Protein backbone atom coordinates (compact mmCIF):
# COMPACT_ATOMS: atom_id res chain seq x y z
CA UNK A 1 0.00 0.00 0.00
CA UNK A 2 2.26 2.71 -1.33
CA UNK A 3 1.66 6.46 -1.16
CA UNK A 4 3.87 9.46 -1.84
CA UNK A 5 5.13 12.30 0.32
CA UNK A 6 7.22 15.38 -0.38
CA UNK A 7 10.45 14.81 1.43
CA UNK A 8 14.02 16.01 1.55
CA UNK A 9 16.81 13.44 1.41
CA UNK A 10 17.13 13.63 5.19
CA UNK A 11 13.36 13.46 5.59
CA UNK A 12 13.23 10.36 3.43
CA UNK A 13 15.78 8.62 5.64
CA UNK A 14 13.77 9.66 8.67
CA UNK A 15 10.63 8.19 7.12
CA UNK A 16 12.40 4.94 6.28
CA UNK A 17 13.79 4.64 9.80
CA UNK A 18 10.36 5.32 11.26
CA UNK A 19 8.90 2.58 9.11
CA UNK A 20 11.62 0.14 10.17
CA UNK A 21 11.09 0.92 13.83
CA UNK A 22 7.35 0.62 13.35
CA UNK A 23 7.25 -2.61 11.39
CA UNK A 24 10.26 -4.44 12.77
CA UNK A 25 10.08 -4.57 16.54
CA UNK A 26 13.57 -6.06 16.62
CA UNK A 27 15.13 -2.85 15.31
CA UNK A 28 17.13 -0.55 17.58
CA UNK A 29 18.46 2.85 16.60
CA UNK A 30 21.44 4.36 18.35
CA UNK A 31 24.45 6.60 18.03
CA UNK A 32 25.82 9.88 19.28
CA UNK A 33 23.15 12.56 19.69
CA UNK A 34 20.61 10.62 17.64
CA UNK A 35 17.85 10.23 20.21
CA UNK A 36 16.95 13.21 22.37
CA UNK A 37 18.62 15.78 20.09
CA UNK A 38 17.44 14.02 16.91
CA UNK A 39 20.88 13.86 15.31
CA UNK A 40 23.36 16.58 14.49
CA UNK A 41 21.77 16.84 11.06
CA UNK A 42 18.24 16.34 12.35
CA UNK A 43 17.83 13.09 10.43
CA UNK A 44 16.54 11.09 13.38
CA UNK A 45 14.30 13.82 14.76
CA UNK A 46 11.16 12.60 16.49
CA UNK A 47 12.12 8.94 16.52
CA UNK A 48 12.94 8.78 20.20
CA UNK A 49 9.61 10.30 21.04
CA UNK A 50 7.78 7.89 18.76
CA UNK A 51 9.64 4.71 19.62
CA UNK A 52 10.94 5.24 23.14
CA UNK A 53 13.92 3.37 24.48
CA UNK A 54 14.64 1.50 21.27
CA UNK A 55 16.09 4.80 20.11
CA UNK A 56 18.93 5.93 22.35
CA UNK A 57 22.04 8.08 22.64
CA UNK A 58 25.44 6.52 23.20
CA UNK A 59 28.71 7.70 24.67
CA UNK A 60 31.41 8.85 22.21
CA UNK A 61 32.59 5.27 21.97
CA UNK A 62 32.45 4.07 18.38
CA UNK A 63 34.07 0.76 19.29
CA UNK A 64 31.50 0.06 21.99
CA UNK A 65 28.71 1.26 19.76
CA UNK A 66 29.63 -0.91 16.78
CA UNK A 67 30.51 -3.85 19.00
CA UNK A 68 27.14 -3.50 20.69
CA UNK A 69 25.51 -3.57 17.29
CA UNK A 70 27.35 -6.77 16.39
CA UNK A 71 26.40 -8.45 19.66
CA UNK A 72 22.78 -7.34 19.52
CA UNK A 73 22.54 -8.50 15.92
CA UNK A 74 24.02 -11.91 16.84
CA UNK A 75 21.31 -12.33 19.45
CA UNK A 76 18.27 -11.46 17.38
CA UNK A 77 18.06 -7.68 17.24
CA UNK A 78 18.38 -5.61 14.09
CA UNK A 79 20.44 -2.61 15.18
CA UNK A 80 20.78 0.56 13.15
CA UNK A 81 23.82 2.56 14.27
CA UNK A 82 24.81 6.02 13.21
CA UNK A 83 28.49 6.86 12.80
CA UNK A 84 28.31 10.61 12.51
CA UNK A 85 31.11 10.91 9.96
CA UNK A 86 32.65 8.05 7.96
CA UNK A 87 36.05 9.33 9.13
CA UNK A 88 35.11 8.25 12.67
CA UNK A 89 34.67 4.62 11.59
CA UNK A 90 38.43 4.44 11.66
CA UNK A 91 38.66 4.55 15.45
CA UNK A 92 36.58 1.36 15.45
CA UNK A 93 37.32 -0.24 12.12
CA UNK A 94 38.09 -3.54 13.82
CA UNK A 95 34.45 -3.98 14.78
CA UNK A 96 33.41 -3.71 11.15
CA UNK A 97 36.19 -5.64 9.42
CA UNK A 98 37.33 -8.20 11.99
CA UNK A 99 34.03 -8.63 13.78
CA UNK A 100 30.84 -7.89 11.82
CA UNK A 101 32.20 -9.17 8.52
CA UNK A 102 33.26 -12.51 10.01
CA UNK A 103 30.16 -13.45 11.96
CA UNK A 104 28.26 -15.44 9.36
CA UNK A 105 31.16 -16.90 7.41
CA UNK A 106 33.33 -18.05 10.28
CA UNK A 107 30.39 -19.56 12.17
CA UNK A 108 29.45 -21.49 9.01
CA UNK A 109 26.13 -19.69 8.98
CA UNK A 110 25.17 -20.48 12.57
CA UNK A 111 25.28 -16.80 13.51
CA UNK A 112 24.41 -13.68 11.57
CA UNK A 113 24.95 -9.95 12.05
CA UNK A 114 21.99 -8.15 10.50
CA UNK A 115 23.06 -4.65 11.39
CA UNK A 116 22.97 -1.40 9.50
CA UNK A 117 25.59 1.30 9.88
CA UNK A 118 24.38 4.67 8.70
CA UNK A 119 27.11 7.18 8.09
CA UNK A 120 27.82 10.12 5.84
CA UNK A 121 30.98 11.20 4.13
CA UNK A 122 32.71 13.54 1.74
CA UNK A 123 33.75 17.13 1.72
CA UNK A 124 31.55 20.13 2.46
CA UNK A 125 32.93 23.67 2.17
CA UNK A 126 35.42 24.36 4.94
CA UNK A 127 35.48 20.87 6.39
CA UNK A 128 38.86 19.74 7.68
CA UNK A 129 40.86 16.74 6.47
CA UNK A 130 39.46 14.59 9.27
CA UNK A 131 35.87 15.34 8.24
CA UNK A 132 36.12 15.11 4.45
CA UNK A 133 37.20 11.68 3.36
CA UNK A 134 35.37 9.37 0.97
CA UNK A 135 36.09 5.96 2.39
CA UNK A 136 33.87 3.57 0.43
CA UNK A 137 36.85 1.83 -1.15
CA UNK A 138 38.06 0.64 2.25
CA UNK A 139 34.72 -1.05 2.89
CA UNK A 140 34.45 -2.44 -0.63
CA UNK A 141 37.63 -4.48 -0.18
CA UNK A 142 36.08 -6.23 2.81
CA UNK A 143 34.12 -9.38 1.99
CA UNK A 144 31.09 -9.80 4.23
CA UNK A 145 29.91 -6.18 4.28
CA UNK A 146 27.33 -4.70 1.93
CA UNK A 147 27.56 -1.04 0.90
CA UNK A 148 24.88 1.32 -0.38
CA UNK A 149 25.17 4.99 -1.30
CA UNK A 150 21.92 6.84 -1.95
CA UNK A 151 21.92 10.21 -3.68
CA UNK A 152 18.27 11.11 -4.18
CA UNK A 153 15.44 11.10 -1.67
CA UNK A 154 13.74 8.06 -3.16
CA UNK A 155 16.90 6.02 -2.92
CA UNK A 156 17.58 7.35 0.53
CA UNK A 157 14.24 5.90 1.53
CA UNK A 158 14.45 2.66 -0.44
CA UNK A 159 18.05 1.77 0.28
CA UNK A 160 17.65 2.41 3.99
CA UNK A 161 14.75 0.00 4.08
CA UNK A 162 16.58 -2.63 2.06
CA UNK A 163 19.65 -2.26 4.24
CA UNK A 164 17.79 -2.67 7.50
CA UNK A 165 15.88 -5.63 6.12
CA UNK A 166 19.05 -7.30 4.86
CA UNK A 167 20.31 -10.11 7.08
CA UNK A 168 23.94 -9.11 6.64
CA UNK A 169 25.91 -6.07 7.80
CA UNK A 170 25.24 -3.12 5.52
CA UNK A 171 26.91 0.28 5.55
CA UNK A 172 24.71 3.01 4.11
CA UNK A 173 26.86 5.98 3.19
CA UNK A 174 24.90 9.20 3.07
CA UNK A 175 26.10 12.72 2.34
CA UNK A 176 25.52 15.72 4.57
CA UNK A 177 25.39 18.18 1.69
CA UNK A 178 22.23 16.41 0.53
CA UNK A 179 20.23 16.19 3.76
CA UNK A 180 18.50 19.53 3.59
CA UNK A 181 18.13 19.89 -0.17
CA UNK A 182 14.92 20.38 -2.08
CA UNK A 183 11.94 18.17 -1.36
CA UNK A 184 10.78 15.68 -3.93
CA UNK A 185 7.97 13.18 -4.24
CA UNK A 186 8.97 9.96 -2.54
CA UNK A 187 6.97 6.73 -2.79
CA UNK A 188 6.71 5.42 0.72
CA UNK A 189 5.15 2.30 2.14
CA UNK A 190 5.77 0.15 -0.94
CA UNK A 191 7.39 -3.26 -0.88
CA UNK A 192 10.98 -3.50 0.30
CA UNK A 193 13.35 -3.95 -2.62
CA UNK A 194 16.10 -6.54 -2.57
CA UNK A 195 19.61 -5.16 -2.29
CA UNK A 196 21.59 -4.49 -5.46
CA UNK A 197 21.00 -2.78 -8.77
CA UNK A 198 21.83 0.61 -10.26
CA UNK A 199 20.05 3.72 -11.56
CA UNK A 200 20.36 4.89 -15.13
CA UNK A 201 20.50 8.68 -14.70
CA UNK A 202 21.07 9.56 -18.35
CA UNK A 203 20.90 7.39 -21.46
CA UNK A 204 23.30 7.84 -24.36
CA UNK A 205 25.50 6.12 -26.85
CA UNK A 206 28.97 7.63 -26.84
CA UNK A 207 30.29 6.71 -23.46
CA UNK A 208 29.35 4.86 -20.28
CA UNK A 209 29.85 6.82 -17.10
CA UNK A 210 29.85 4.90 -13.84
CA UNK A 211 29.54 7.00 -10.72
CA UNK A 212 28.19 7.01 -7.17
CA UNK A 213 27.58 9.37 -4.30
CA UNK A 214 26.92 13.09 -4.27
CA UNK A 215 29.19 13.71 -7.24
CA UNK A 216 26.48 12.16 -9.41
CA UNK A 217 25.06 15.67 -9.50
CA UNK A 218 28.24 17.03 -11.08
CA UNK A 219 28.28 14.13 -13.52
CA UNK A 220 24.74 14.93 -14.64
CA UNK A 221 25.66 18.59 -15.00
CA UNK A 222 28.72 17.69 -17.07
CA UNK A 223 26.72 15.37 -19.31
CA UNK A 224 24.15 18.10 -19.88
CA UNK A 225 26.95 20.50 -20.80
CA UNK A 226 28.61 18.22 -23.34
CA UNK A 227 25.26 17.33 -24.88
CA UNK A 228 25.62 20.61 -26.74
CA UNK A 229 28.74 19.20 -28.40
CA UNK A 230 26.79 16.14 -29.46
CA UNK A 231 28.16 13.82 -26.79
CA UNK A 232 25.62 11.50 -25.20
CA UNK A 233 26.30 9.25 -22.25
CA UNK A 234 24.84 6.43 -20.25
CA UNK A 235 25.13 7.50 -16.62
CA UNK A 236 25.03 4.48 -14.38
CA UNK A 237 24.76 5.44 -10.74
CA UNK A 238 25.87 2.54 -8.57
CA UNK A 239 23.49 2.99 -5.65
CA UNK A 240 24.69 -0.37 -4.40
CA UNK A 241 28.45 -0.79 -4.52
CA UNK A 242 28.33 -4.20 -2.89
CA UNK A 243 26.71 -6.00 -4.58
CA UNK A 244 27.94 -4.08 -7.60
CA UNK A 245 26.00 -4.37 -10.84
CA UNK A 246 28.88 -5.37 -13.10
CA UNK A 247 26.53 -6.79 -15.72
CA UNK A 248 24.78 -3.47 -16.26
CA UNK A 249 28.11 -1.72 -16.74
CA UNK A 250 29.35 -4.32 -19.20
CA UNK A 251 26.12 -4.21 -21.18
CA UNK A 252 26.38 -0.45 -21.51
CA UNK A 253 30.09 -0.43 -22.41
CA UNK A 254 29.44 -3.15 -24.98
CA UNK A 255 27.21 -0.58 -26.68
CA UNK A 256 29.20 2.63 -26.13
CA UNK A 257 32.72 1.23 -26.33
CA UNK A 258 33.92 3.85 -23.89
CA UNK A 259 34.20 4.06 -20.10
CA UNK A 260 34.58 6.88 -17.62
CA UNK A 261 34.38 6.31 -13.88
CA UNK A 262 33.84 9.29 -11.57
CA UNK A 263 34.07 9.34 -7.81
CA UNK A 264 34.80 11.95 -5.17
CA UNK A 265 37.35 9.74 -3.42
CA UNK A 266 41.00 10.13 -4.37
CA UNK A 267 42.02 8.18 -7.41
CA UNK A 268 44.64 5.69 -6.29
CA UNK A 269 43.06 2.55 -4.89
CA UNK A 270 39.57 3.99 -5.26
CA UNK A 271 36.76 1.72 -6.33
CA UNK A 272 36.97 3.25 -9.79
CA UNK A 273 40.02 1.08 -10.35
CA UNK A 274 37.92 -2.01 -9.68
CA UNK A 275 35.29 -0.90 -12.20
CA UNK A 276 37.93 -0.23 -14.85
CA UNK A 277 39.61 -3.56 -14.11
CA UNK A 278 36.37 -5.51 -14.42
CA UNK A 279 35.49 -3.88 -17.71
CA UNK A 280 38.96 -4.42 -19.16
CA UNK A 281 39.16 -8.01 -17.95
CA UNK A 282 35.81 -8.76 -19.53
CA UNK A 283 37.28 -8.24 -22.95
CA UNK A 284 34.51 -5.87 -24.04
CA UNK A 285 36.13 -3.97 -26.91
CA UNK A 286 36.94 -0.34 -26.11
CA UNK A 287 37.42 2.34 -28.72
CA UNK A 288 39.45 4.49 -26.35
CA UNK A 289 41.36 3.86 -23.13
CA UNK A 290 39.11 3.98 -20.07
CA UNK A 291 39.41 6.98 -17.77
CA UNK A 292 38.82 7.81 -14.15
CA UNK A 293 38.07 11.12 -12.48
CA UNK A 294 38.62 11.35 -8.75
CA UNK A 295 40.23 13.59 -6.17
CA UNK A 296 43.96 14.20 -6.29
CA UNK A 297 45.93 11.81 -4.13
CA UNK A 298 46.39 14.32 -1.34
CA UNK A 299 44.72 15.03 1.97
CA UNK A 300 41.75 17.43 1.88
CA UNK A 301 42.64 21.01 2.84
CA UNK A 302 40.07 23.05 4.76
CA UNK A 303 40.48 26.12 2.55
CA UNK A 304 37.64 26.09 0.05
CA UNK A 305 39.79 27.28 -2.84
CA UNK A 306 42.37 24.58 -2.13
CA UNK A 307 39.77 21.86 -1.68
CA UNK A 308 38.31 22.79 -5.05
CA UNK A 309 41.69 22.21 -6.60
CA UNK A 310 41.85 18.78 -5.01
CA UNK A 311 38.30 17.52 -5.49
CA UNK A 312 36.85 16.66 -8.89
CA UNK A 313 34.82 19.52 -10.38
CA UNK A 314 32.23 19.51 -13.14
CA UNK A 315 34.84 20.95 -15.48
CA UNK A 316 37.15 18.01 -14.84
CA UNK A 317 34.36 15.64 -15.79
CA UNK A 318 33.64 17.63 -18.95
CA UNK A 319 37.32 17.48 -19.89
CA UNK A 320 37.42 13.73 -19.30
CA UNK A 321 34.27 13.23 -21.38
CA UNK A 322 35.78 15.17 -24.24
CA UNK A 323 39.03 13.25 -23.96
CA UNK A 324 37.46 9.81 -23.79
CA UNK A 325 35.04 10.45 -26.66
CA UNK A 326 37.56 12.41 -28.69
CA UNK A 327 34.91 15.06 -29.39
Amino acid at each position, binding site marked *: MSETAKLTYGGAINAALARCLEQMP*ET*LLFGEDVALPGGVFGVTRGLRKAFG*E*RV*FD*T*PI*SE*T*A*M*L*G*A*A*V*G*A*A*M*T*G*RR*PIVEIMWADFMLV*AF*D*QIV*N*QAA*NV*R*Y*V*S*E*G*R*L*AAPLTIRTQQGNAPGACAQHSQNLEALLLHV*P*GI*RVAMPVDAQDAYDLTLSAVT*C*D*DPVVVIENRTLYAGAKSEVRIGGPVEPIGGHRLRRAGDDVTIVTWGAITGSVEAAVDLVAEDGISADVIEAVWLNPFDTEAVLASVRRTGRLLVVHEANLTGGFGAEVVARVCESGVPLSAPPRRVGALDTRIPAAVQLAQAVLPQTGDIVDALRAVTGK
Partner: protein
Amino acid sequence: MRVSGEQLADLLAMWRIRVLEETILSLRLDGRIVGSVHLENGQEAIPVGACRMLRPQDALYSTYRGHGWALARGVPATGIMAELLYRRTGVNGGRGGSAHFSAPEYGFYGENSIVGAGAPIAVGAALAAKFDGSGRVAVTVFGDGAMNQGGVTEAMNMAAAMDLPVVFICENNKYSELTPINDMVRNPDLSARAHALGIPAVRVDGNDPAQVATAVGLAVTTAEHGRGPTFIEATTRRIVGHYIGDAQSYRPAGELAEDEKHEPIVRLKKQLTLQGVTAETLDGVEQRARTEIAAATERALAAPLSDPSTAREHLYV
Protein backbone atom coordinates in the same frame (compact mmCIF):
# COMPACT_ATOMS: atom_id res chain seq x y z
CA MET B 1 34.28 -32.60 56.75
CA ARG B 2 31.44 -32.53 54.26
CA VAL B 3 32.24 -32.95 50.61
CA SER B 4 29.81 -31.16 48.38
CA GLY B 5 28.66 -32.61 45.09
CA GLU B 6 29.73 -29.36 43.53
CA GLN B 7 33.33 -29.91 44.53
CA LEU B 8 33.48 -33.25 42.78
CA ALA B 9 31.61 -31.85 39.79
CA ASP B 10 34.08 -28.98 39.61
CA LEU B 11 36.98 -31.40 39.77
CA LEU B 12 35.52 -33.45 36.94
CA ALA B 13 34.86 -30.34 34.85
CA MET B 14 38.41 -29.10 35.42
CA TRP B 15 39.86 -32.48 34.54
CA ARG B 16 37.85 -32.52 31.33
CA ILE B 17 39.40 -29.21 30.31
CA ARG B 18 42.87 -30.28 31.37
CA VAL B 19 42.67 -33.50 29.40
CA LEU B 20 41.14 -31.74 26.42
CA GLU B 21 44.04 -29.30 26.40
CA GLU B 22 46.62 -32.05 26.86
CA THR B 23 45.11 -33.96 23.97
CA ILE B 24 45.11 -30.86 21.81
CA LEU B 25 48.74 -30.28 22.72
CA SER B 26 49.76 -33.73 21.60
CA LEU B 27 47.74 -33.48 18.37
CA ARG B 28 49.37 -30.14 17.71
CA LEU B 29 52.84 -31.47 18.38
CA ASP B 30 52.38 -34.43 16.07
CA GLY B 31 51.06 -32.10 13.36
CA ARG B 32 47.48 -33.24 13.18
CA ILE B 33 46.39 -29.84 14.45
CA VAL B 34 48.21 -26.92 12.82
CA GLY B 35 48.60 -23.23 13.52
CA SER B 36 48.57 -21.14 16.66
CA VAL B 37 46.91 -22.74 19.69
CA HIS B 38 46.45 -21.17 23.14
CA LEU B 39 45.93 -23.54 26.06
CA GLU B 40 44.47 -22.67 29.42
CA ASN B 41 46.09 -25.19 31.71
CA GLY B 42 46.10 -23.77 35.21
CA GLN B 43 43.16 -21.46 34.55
CA GLU B 44 40.42 -24.12 34.53
CA ALA B 45 38.77 -22.99 37.74
CA ILE B 46 37.51 -19.80 36.13
CA PRO B 47 35.45 -21.31 33.31
CA VAL B 48 34.29 -24.11 35.55
CA GLY B 49 33.23 -21.84 38.42
CA ALA B 50 31.66 -19.29 36.11
CA CYS B 51 29.79 -21.59 33.76
CA ARG B 52 28.13 -23.51 36.50
CA MET B 53 26.26 -20.30 37.40
CA LEU B 54 25.09 -19.57 33.85
CA ARG B 55 21.65 -20.42 32.53
CA PRO B 56 20.75 -21.61 29.03
CA GLN B 57 19.68 -18.14 27.95
CA ASP B 58 23.02 -16.55 28.86
CA ALA B 59 25.55 -15.59 26.21
CA LEU B 60 29.24 -16.25 26.75
CA TYR B 61 32.04 -14.53 24.82
CA SER B 62 35.59 -15.75 25.39
CA THR B 63 39.03 -15.06 23.96
CA TYR B 64 41.21 -17.25 21.74
CA ARG B 65 42.06 -19.10 24.98
CA GLY B 66 38.57 -20.53 24.85
CA HIS B 67 38.49 -24.33 24.49
CA GLY B 68 37.85 -24.78 28.18
CA TRP B 69 35.24 -22.05 28.29
CA ALA B 70 33.35 -23.73 25.48
CA LEU B 71 33.58 -27.11 27.16
CA ALA B 72 32.47 -25.75 30.52
CA ARG B 73 29.57 -24.03 28.80
CA GLY B 74 28.39 -27.39 27.51
CA VAL B 75 29.78 -27.53 24.01
CA PRO B 76 30.53 -31.21 23.35
CA ALA B 77 34.23 -32.06 23.39
CA THR B 78 33.91 -33.84 20.07
CA GLY B 79 32.57 -30.71 18.37
CA ILE B 80 35.48 -28.68 19.73
CA MET B 81 38.06 -31.31 18.83
CA ALA B 82 36.58 -31.72 15.35
CA GLU B 83 36.73 -27.97 14.90
CA LEU B 84 40.42 -27.87 15.70
CA LEU B 85 40.92 -30.80 13.34
CA TYR B 86 38.96 -29.01 10.58
CA ARG B 87 36.30 -31.70 10.33
CA ARG B 88 32.79 -31.40 8.97
CA THR B 89 31.54 -32.16 12.46
CA GLY B 90 33.47 -29.27 13.98
CA VAL B 91 31.19 -26.69 15.53
CA ASN B 92 31.95 -24.39 12.59
CA GLY B 93 33.19 -26.98 10.13
CA GLY B 94 36.74 -25.86 10.83
CA ARG B 95 36.24 -22.26 9.79
CA GLY B 96 36.86 -20.89 13.26
CA GLY B 97 39.61 -23.27 14.30
CA SER B 98 41.24 -23.14 17.72
CA ALA B 99 41.05 -19.39 18.14
CA HIS B 100 37.78 -18.20 16.64
CA PHE B 101 35.01 -20.78 17.00
CA SER B 102 31.47 -20.40 18.30
CA ALA B 103 28.58 -22.67 19.21
CA PRO B 104 25.60 -20.41 19.88
CA GLU B 105 23.29 -23.36 20.34
CA TYR B 106 25.10 -23.93 23.63
CA GLY B 107 25.18 -20.29 24.63
CA PHE B 108 28.79 -20.03 23.51
CA TYR B 109 28.84 -16.98 21.28
CA GLY B 110 32.40 -17.41 20.44
CA GLU B 111 36.04 -16.85 20.86
CA ASN B 112 37.68 -13.70 19.60
CA SER B 113 41.26 -13.33 18.47
CA ILE B 114 41.37 -9.57 18.66
CA VAL B 115 42.34 -8.63 22.20
CA GLY B 116 39.43 -6.98 23.99
CA ALA B 117 37.06 -7.08 21.02
CA GLY B 118 34.61 -9.46 22.68
CA ALA B 119 33.71 -6.99 25.41
CA PRO B 120 31.69 -4.53 23.28
CA ILE B 121 30.04 -7.45 21.50
CA ALA B 122 28.90 -8.91 24.79
CA VAL B 123 27.50 -5.50 25.69
CA GLY B 124 25.41 -5.86 22.54
CA ALA B 125 24.03 -9.22 23.65
CA ALA B 126 23.11 -7.56 26.93
CA LEU B 127 21.52 -4.69 25.06
CA ALA B 128 19.39 -7.18 23.15
CA ALA B 129 18.26 -8.64 26.46
CA LYS B 130 16.86 -5.28 27.45
CA PHE B 131 14.31 -5.64 24.68
CA ASP B 132 13.76 -9.32 23.96
CA GLY B 133 12.43 -10.62 27.25
CA SER B 134 14.98 -13.41 27.23
CA GLY B 135 16.41 -12.63 30.63
CA ARG B 136 19.82 -13.15 29.03
CA VAL B 137 22.93 -12.13 30.92
CA ALA B 138 25.99 -11.64 28.76
CA VAL B 139 29.38 -12.75 30.03
CA THR B 140 32.63 -11.61 28.51
CA VAL B 141 36.03 -12.95 29.42
CA PHE B 142 39.33 -11.29 28.69
CA GLY B 143 42.84 -11.17 30.06
CA ASP B 144 44.75 -8.71 32.20
CA GLY B 145 46.47 -7.32 29.13
CA ALA B 146 43.14 -6.67 27.45
CA MET B 147 42.37 -4.09 30.13
CA ASN B 148 44.69 -1.76 28.21
CA GLN B 149 42.74 -2.08 24.99
CA GLY B 150 40.50 1.01 24.82
CA GLY B 151 37.43 -0.84 23.61
CA VAL B 152 37.20 -2.67 26.92
CA THR B 153 36.85 0.58 28.85
CA GLU B 154 34.34 1.80 26.28
CA ALA B 155 32.32 -1.38 26.71
CA MET B 156 32.38 -1.18 30.50
CA ASN B 157 31.32 2.44 30.48
CA MET B 158 28.46 1.86 28.06
CA ALA B 159 27.20 -1.11 30.07
CA ALA B 160 27.38 0.95 33.25
CA ALA B 161 25.68 4.00 31.79
CA MET B 162 22.84 1.87 30.41
CA ASP B 163 22.59 -0.62 33.32
CA LEU B 164 23.08 -3.52 30.96
CA PRO B 165 23.21 -7.13 32.20
CA VAL B 166 26.86 -7.94 31.60
CA VAL B 167 29.44 -9.78 33.65
CA PHE B 168 32.99 -8.72 32.84
CA ILE B 169 35.46 -11.42 33.85
CA CYS B 170 39.11 -10.50 33.74
CA GLU B 171 41.36 -13.55 33.90
CA ASN B 172 44.44 -12.01 35.42
CA ASN B 173 47.15 -14.57 34.73
CA LYS B 174 49.88 -11.99 35.26
CA TYR B 175 51.15 -12.06 31.68
CA SER B 176 50.04 -10.67 28.34
CA GLU B 177 51.75 -13.03 25.98
CA LEU B 178 55.38 -12.69 27.06
CA THR B 179 55.14 -9.48 29.09
CA PRO B 180 54.19 -9.13 32.77
CA ILE B 181 51.08 -7.01 33.29
CA ASN B 182 52.71 -5.21 36.20
CA ASP B 183 55.24 -3.66 33.81
CA MET B 184 52.38 -2.30 31.71
CA VAL B 185 50.30 -0.59 34.40
CA ARG B 186 51.02 1.66 37.34
CA ASN B 187 48.17 0.41 39.45
CA PRO B 188 48.14 -3.39 39.54
CA ASP B 189 44.60 -3.37 40.95
CA LEU B 190 42.76 -3.70 37.65
CA SER B 191 39.35 -3.81 39.28
CA ALA B 192 39.86 -0.19 40.36
CA ARG B 193 39.13 0.79 36.78
CA ALA B 194 35.70 -0.76 36.94
CA HIS B 195 35.01 0.91 40.27
CA ALA B 196 35.91 4.25 38.72
CA LEU B 197 33.27 3.67 36.07
CA GLY B 198 30.70 3.01 38.77
CA ILE B 199 30.74 -0.76 38.31
CA PRO B 200 30.76 -3.04 41.37
CA ALA B 201 34.04 -4.89 41.16
CA VAL B 202 35.62 -7.70 43.07
CA ARG B 203 38.88 -9.59 42.95
CA VAL B 204 38.68 -13.33 43.58
CA ASP B 205 41.10 -16.20 43.69
CA GLY B 206 40.64 -17.57 40.22
CA ASN B 207 42.20 -20.89 41.12
CA ASP B 208 39.20 -21.71 43.31
CA PRO B 209 36.09 -22.58 41.32
CA ALA B 210 33.88 -21.99 44.34
CA GLN B 211 35.03 -18.37 44.73
CA VAL B 212 34.56 -17.75 41.04
CA ALA B 213 31.10 -19.31 41.15
CA THR B 214 30.09 -17.19 44.11
CA ALA B 215 31.13 -13.98 42.40
CA VAL B 216 29.60 -14.89 39.06
CA GLY B 217 26.38 -16.04 40.72
CA LEU B 218 26.04 -12.72 42.46
CA ALA B 219 26.88 -10.86 39.27
CA VAL B 220 24.22 -12.77 37.33
CA THR B 221 21.63 -11.97 40.01
CA THR B 222 22.66 -8.33 39.99
CA ALA B 223 22.25 -8.23 36.22
CA GLU B 224 18.93 -10.05 36.35
CA HIS B 225 17.62 -7.49 38.79
CA GLY B 226 18.32 -4.76 36.31
CA ARG B 227 21.28 -3.44 38.30
CA GLY B 228 23.67 -3.64 35.40
CA PRO B 229 27.21 -4.90 35.08
CA THR B 230 29.66 -6.43 37.53
CA PHE B 231 33.40 -6.75 37.10
CA ILE B 232 35.25 -9.79 38.41
CA GLU B 233 39.01 -9.95 38.41
CA ALA B 234 40.01 -13.59 38.82
CA THR B 235 43.67 -14.04 39.59
CA THR B 236 45.28 -17.16 38.20
CA ARG B 237 48.38 -18.48 36.45
CA ARG B 238 48.75 -20.35 33.24
CA ILE B 239 51.10 -23.28 33.72
CA VAL B 240 51.78 -23.57 30.01
CA GLY B 241 53.12 -21.14 27.43
CA HIS B 242 51.04 -18.37 25.92
CA TYR B 243 50.82 -20.46 22.78
CA ILE B 244 52.09 -23.90 21.97
CA GLY B 245 55.79 -23.43 21.34
CA ASP B 246 56.31 -20.57 23.79
CA ALA B 247 59.56 -21.36 25.59
CA GLN B 248 58.53 -19.15 28.54
CA SER B 249 62.03 -17.79 28.96
CA TYR B 250 60.46 -14.60 30.31
CA ARG B 251 59.49 -16.37 33.52
CA PRO B 252 61.71 -15.89 36.57
CA ALA B 253 63.36 -19.10 37.76
CA GLY B 254 61.12 -21.18 39.98
CA GLU B 255 57.93 -19.33 39.11
CA LEU B 256 56.42 -22.12 37.08
CA ALA B 257 57.14 -24.73 39.75
CA GLU B 258 55.52 -22.49 42.32
CA ASP B 259 52.49 -21.91 40.13
CA GLU B 260 52.11 -25.63 39.58
CA LYS B 261 51.81 -26.13 43.32
CA HIS B 262 48.77 -23.87 43.42
CA GLU B 263 47.08 -24.81 40.20
CA PRO B 264 43.39 -25.53 40.65
CA ILE B 265 43.33 -29.27 40.14
CA VAL B 266 46.21 -29.94 42.50
CA ARG B 267 44.62 -27.59 44.96
CA LEU B 268 41.12 -29.01 44.84
CA LYS B 269 42.46 -32.55 45.08
CA LYS B 270 44.44 -31.58 48.16
CA GLN B 271 41.38 -29.95 49.67
CA LEU B 272 39.17 -32.94 48.95
CA THR B 273 41.79 -35.27 50.40
CA LEU B 274 41.77 -33.24 53.59
CA GLN B 275 38.00 -33.48 53.54
CA GLY B 276 38.38 -37.26 53.50
CA VAL B 277 37.87 -38.13 49.86
CA THR B 278 39.84 -41.22 48.92
CA ALA B 279 42.54 -41.40 46.30
CA GLU B 280 40.40 -43.95 44.45
CA THR B 281 37.54 -41.51 44.15
CA LEU B 282 39.86 -38.77 42.95
CA ASP B 283 41.50 -41.05 40.44
CA GLY B 284 38.07 -42.14 39.29
CA VAL B 285 37.16 -38.54 38.48
CA GLU B 286 40.32 -38.08 36.46
CA GLN B 287 39.78 -41.42 34.74
CA ARG B 288 36.26 -40.50 33.78
CA ALA B 289 37.47 -37.28 32.17
CA ARG B 290 40.19 -39.13 30.31
CA THR B 291 37.77 -41.72 28.99
CA GLU B 292 35.29 -39.09 27.84
CA ILE B 293 37.83 -36.94 26.07
CA ALA B 294 39.52 -39.93 24.49
CA ALA B 295 36.21 -41.07 23.05
CA ALA B 296 35.39 -37.56 21.85
CA THR B 297 38.78 -37.27 20.20
CA GLU B 298 38.36 -40.58 18.48
CA ARG B 299 34.98 -39.55 17.09
CA ALA B 300 36.44 -36.26 15.91
CA LEU B 301 39.39 -37.93 14.20
CA ALA B 302 37.04 -40.37 12.48
CA ALA B 303 34.94 -37.60 10.92
CA PRO B 304 35.69 -36.46 7.37
CA LEU B 305 37.52 -33.19 6.74
CA SER B 306 35.19 -30.40 5.79
CA ASP B 307 34.82 -30.09 2.06
CA PRO B 308 36.87 -27.42 0.25
CA SER B 309 34.10 -27.00 -2.30
CA THR B 310 32.01 -25.37 0.45
CA ALA B 311 34.56 -22.60 0.99
CA ARG B 312 32.47 -20.01 -0.82
CA GLU B 313 29.34 -20.64 1.22
CA HIS B 314 27.90 -18.53 4.01
CA LEU B 315 29.60 -15.24 3.22
CA TYR B 316 26.19 -13.65 2.83
CA VAL B 317 22.64 -14.99 3.28
